[in-house]
């Protein structure tokens, strides 16, 4: 466990596009940045056994998740010349078409941002204890399995 207390990444409910726009705007004073790379995970209305996913209910082992995200952050900053990095994940209900994951990486030049963004998203999927239960229109649910 590292010494710094990890900053929270959790947002209750969906992440709004307006929030994404505001996050981008906050970086306009950082004039060493040349490249922003952003990933947004959106809930799909997948069809299973003829029923559409209406929303996903997210839960997390929050303390462990924050620790794992902190390690992912530190690893990315160690490996790549990044200016900044922000990670947000939803808890609770996120409807189809809404955003549940927002990863935002900035760097002076684009290659670092592209490479770091992809690594971070892959690591979040593999290492961070978060679970999504897909809830169908009729209220039934099934635990999501990441590809």
């Amino acid at each position, binding site marked *: 466990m590292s010494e710094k207390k990890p900053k929270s990444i959790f947002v209750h409910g969906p992440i709004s596009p307006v929030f994404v726009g505001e996050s981008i705007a906050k970086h306009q004073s950082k004039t060493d940045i040349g490249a922003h790379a952003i990933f947004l*995970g959106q809930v799909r209305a997948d069809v299973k056994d003829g029923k559409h996913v209406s929303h996903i209910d*997210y839960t997390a082992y929050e*303390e462990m998740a924050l620790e794992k995200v902190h390690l992912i952050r530190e690893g990315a900053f160690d490996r790549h010349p990044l200016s900044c990095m922000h990670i947000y*994940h939803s808890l609770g209900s996120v409807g189809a078409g809404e955003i549940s994951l927002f990863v935002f990486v900035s760097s002076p030049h684009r290659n670092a941002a592209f490479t770091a963004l992809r690594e971070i998203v892959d690591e979040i*999927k*593999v290492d*961070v*204890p978060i679970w*999504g239960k897909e809830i169908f229109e009729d209220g039934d649910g099934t635990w999501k399995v990441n590809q």
Partner: protein
Amino acid sequence: MSEQTEKSIQILAFGMIAEVLSSQETSWKWASDTDTLRADLIGAFPKLTNLPFVIAVDMEVSQGNQPISPGATIALLPPYSGG
């Protein structure tokens, strides 16, 4: 009763494992290692037999069998599906 059998640990459960245990947080009798704990849990909740989950001890996922110190934080983690 020996001192050992009186010890208990807190177990956190998540996702489909929490559904099987009907609880996100359970007080459980202490087991000395993760293989013993897993066997105890499966004995009490046979539905766990075919469900994939790992055991985290103090927020580290155990690789193979791992000792459990009294007072450790135990968590039962099914495959993650964040994002």
